[in-house]
């Protein structure tokens, strides 16, 4: 019957092998150890990818990593256990498993990446992938050992296979954080490693030829199909996050989505999260509290009464919401943000939801997804406080939200004695832009007190505190839990250093959009 020697001892060895194999030609053992090595490397990379995505996207990295590792190892156990049920065509099965790992592992990160943006049960999808990959990887080693069995002495076999296995794991553990993720990003890492697996599978059709018989074409075609799918994935990967984008951000891109309105990217690094809209940093989780305390609390204590009804324009990250909900007087908050993609992310993306303390679930909060200017036209006119937190005016669509027309509209919607605060870019880096916002608010009839503070990840940042009538800037920080703002910090914010002091500017109006022009010319110098 001419069965290969290693198979002879296996149960069911009496079955005919794949085609008429030539007299037991020994397998090239050293090359197969390389196989073991690559398989181990790839397997661990998938595990690390799953753990990383899980902890980045779902938060609580300890839980996510323990879950992923535990499940992965036990799934490998299941795979090893299942391997005994493979009786026939060991070599063929080995290659098939290899290709399956290549495919499932290779597409895992892209699918999880897209899946997070689209699917409610992300966690299940994640653990599903971990389980399937674990089982397949668990199948691989026993099959390989059985293929070499009889050809090498058992003690050598065990020692060499396990050595290569653990060495592969070490290489994966080093490559993953040092080379793969920084250079390729998560999505491409997954696809490239999948390609590695598939290449090994294809190579295997030659290496294991003695055990495969003649019918290898089918296997090779399958290998090529898997490779084609993964290469296709690499080409498509640009839709998820571009190559340039992965390299542009210092930290790992863990979430990227192009909504109808903008590109939202979340990165994760040693110091925490960063949220970018169209490539511009919106906040860094490490120091955003300074920005948001400064944005919100001065306005909350600048009005005549403790505010009950508060309007937030922009601020889809929910961080301004978090701050103003600390005030017990607040009864109702309406947040108007153009992009449902942003407000949904802030609700459904656990790390962000933790950062904003689930503020979107607060029953006092109503979310409206509309253009703030269009919405304001028909809005009620009873807001005690309005917090205006739009992205910087780097295009005309945003520039209109800083015009005299806009501020007039806003002023007409305030309750008597109400107060407003407006984020107004940097008085240091974009000095004319900052003062243009202040003067435009004044031209709209507001009495404005400009203020500024340092936010390390942004630089010096400026705001305007305004009311329809003359008022003094507040002297006391509110009695709510704050990290940055106290009476001293509050007082200091209203003082400007010599290099930030007012410069002559034109008023930003709908038909001149001066601010966009100032902003472009000023920021160009810093980029």
């Amino acid at each position, binding site marked *: 019957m001419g069965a290969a020697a290693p198979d002879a001892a296996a149960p069911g060895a009496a079955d005919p092998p794949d085609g008429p194999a030539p007299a037991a030609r020994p397998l090239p053992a050293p090359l197969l150890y390389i196989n073991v090595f690559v398989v181990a490397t790839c397997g661990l990379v998938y595990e690390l990818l799953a753990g990383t995505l899980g902890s980045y996207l779902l938060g609580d990295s300890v839980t996510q990593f323990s879950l992923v590792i535990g499940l992965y190892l036990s799934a490998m156990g299941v795979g090893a256990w299942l391997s005994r049920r493979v009786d026939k065509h060991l070599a063929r099965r080995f290659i098939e498993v290899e290709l399956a790992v290549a495919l499932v592992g290779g597409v895992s990160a892209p699918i999880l990446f897209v899946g997070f943006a689209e699917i409610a049960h992300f966690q299940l999808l994640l653990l599903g992938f971990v389980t399937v990959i674990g089982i397949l990887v668990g199948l691989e080693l026993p099959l390989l050992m059985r293929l070499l069995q009889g050809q090498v002495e058992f003690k050598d076999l065990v020692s060499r296979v396990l050595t290569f296995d653990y060495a592969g794991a070490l290489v994966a553990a080093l490559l993953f954080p040092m080379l793969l993720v920084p250079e390729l990003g998560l999505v491409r890492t997954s696809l490239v490693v999948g390609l590695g697996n598939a290449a090994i599978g294809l190579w295997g059709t030659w290496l294991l030829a003695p055990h495969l018989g003649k019918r290898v074409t089918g296997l090779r075609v399958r290998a090529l199909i898997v490779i084609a799918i993964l290469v296709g994935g690499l080409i498509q990967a640009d839709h998820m996050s571009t190559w340039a984008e992965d390299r542009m951000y210092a930290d790992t891109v863990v979430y990227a989505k192009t909504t*109808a309105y903008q590109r939202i990217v979340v990165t994760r690094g040693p110091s925490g999260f960063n949220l970018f809209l169209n490539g511009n940093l919106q906040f860094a989780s490490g120091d955003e509290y300074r920005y948001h305390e400064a944005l919100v609390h001065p306005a909350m204590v600048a009005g005549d009464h403790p505010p009950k009804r508060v309007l937030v324009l922009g601020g889809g990250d929910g961080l301004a919401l978090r701050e103003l909900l600390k005030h017990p007087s607040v009864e109702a908050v309406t947040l108007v943000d153009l992009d449902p993609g942003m407000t949904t992310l802030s609700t459904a993306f656990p790390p962000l939801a933790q950062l904003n303390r689930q503020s979107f679930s607060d029953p006092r909060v109503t979310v409206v997804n509309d253009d703030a200017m269009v919405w304001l036209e028909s809005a009620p006119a009873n807001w005690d406080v309005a917090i205006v937190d739009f992205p910087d005016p780097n295009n005309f669509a945003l520039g209109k939200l800083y015009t005299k027309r806009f501020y007039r509209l806003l002023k007409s919607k305030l309750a008597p004695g109400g107060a407003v605060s407006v984020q107004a870019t940097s008085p240091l880096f974009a000095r004319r832009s900052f003062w243009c916002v202040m003067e435009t608010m004044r031209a709209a009839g507001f009495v404005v007190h400009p203020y500024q503070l340092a936010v390390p990840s942004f630089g010096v940042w400026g705001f305007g505190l305004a009311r329809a009538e003359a008022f003094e800037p507040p002297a006391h920080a509110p009695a709510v839990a704050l990290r940055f703002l106290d009476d001293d910090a509050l007082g200091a914010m209203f003082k400007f250093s010599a290099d930030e002091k007012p410069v002559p500017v034109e008023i930003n*109006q*709908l038909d001149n959009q001066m601010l966009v022009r100032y902003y472009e010319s000023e920021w160009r110098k810093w980029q």
Partner: protein
Amino acid sequence: MGPSRREFVAMLLGAPLAAACGGGGARTIEGSLVETGMGRGHAMRDLRAIPAVPDGRWRRTGVIVIGGGVAGLSAAWWLRRNGRTDVTVVELDDVVGGTARGGASSVTPYPWGAHYVVAPRADEAAMVALFEEQGAIEGHDAHGDPIIDEALRCRDPDERIWYRGRWADGLYLSAGASAEDLAQLARFDAAIDQWATWRDAAGRPAFTVPVSACSTDPTATALDRESFGAWLDRQGLTSERLRWMTDYACRDDYDLLAADTSAWAGIYYFAARRRAPGSSRAVVTWPDGNAHLIAHLASKVGPIETKLAVVDVRAVAGGVEVIALADDGPVGIRAEHAVVAVPRHVARHIVATRREAGGVLPDCGAWAVANVHLRDRPRERPGDAPPAWDNVIRDSPSLGYVSATHQRGRDVGPTVWTWYYPFPEDGAVVRKRLAGAGHGEWAATVVADLARVHRDLPDLVTRVDVAFWGHGMVRPRVGAMFDLTRMSAAAPIGAIHFAHTDLSGMALFEEALDHGVRAAREILAS
């Protein structure tokens, strides 16, 4: 039998585009051809005899205004503002507005014709009053001129131009302009500034709004005897970029090429809107264009009766008698005064004494206007000039499109674009050539034209409605501005007064308003 779809597209946009859009095979686009009064107008024209009105169908009013366009509504508005409450407006169409009418979808209102006016100076009393009534004046500038509400001043960016596969900022292509091009532009500007500041012995400007306030000094009016093209040639202004811009201006405002436009009118376009050298008066606009002003005027006048085609107006002892065709037969209206606020070719047909007088009629050009409903915006290429209010396609016979959502600030999501196509050729020839074209032909043309600048547009279009204005606007051809027939056509005949933009020789809101208010003043003074 009208032309096939492919022939039609080829006729309007050229053969390559017709081939590219697949002609007859293109999918059908939802929408309809909008009635612009031609049905009832032609029925009226083809009437053999003036129908007799049964006794029971005669009524009486103080002043009857015939025609619910800008001129007619302004006359009625001004009469009311000055205490005459017994004014009735009759309009042939289903809706008022004439060529300044508008429409609306659930997304936005949009124009069917006129889409902007120029901010008035302090001495344009009626225009200023119209803005004041709407609370749309936010202050006064150093010249004492009103500053129109920022929300109505055309939002920046106002224009961009498609050229060689890119959108560039503004209307004049400055990228790639040679030193000579720029020198010529500067010389052109200087020449316009000179005319903008020119005054006659009596201190009247050569170019101002309205035309009736312009100097009739021969130094200025001599410009009417040559074409704008010839005038530019004489100044040595031959730069292709400049000539494209001046041609565009003539097509946009006058439905003519510069070579056929009166030089006086050509200079008027540029000079009359200058406030001081180098600075223009603001462009004022609404999502539905001048239909917004129509709605305001219509809300301020007395009864308006639509679907009433006036077929006869005659002076009788003690006033006028008007006969009109309602859907259910003829009706008669007796009044002390009538304001005939219809185009001159219609006035000639319905006013008894005019019918007899004969004479040359002013030249009228045709327009096609389409409203293109989009469920989302086409993709924009990074680095291109961003979407503007007016988006001009440089090498198209169309003028491109105006976005109805731009002014309000809705920059994403569904919108309506108004596409304009002038026919600078002979109006009669155009009307004949296009007769029989159905909605399918028009819609295919509109989409083909827009798809060349927005490739993903066809999939975003949900509806295309098209209006064909056969007699869209009066045109200031050479010699037409200071033509005696025109100038005398505005004179009242007894109690019959005349108001229409074509009495100015050019089609502008301000001109129609000027004549409406003048007719009202004639009545108030009598």
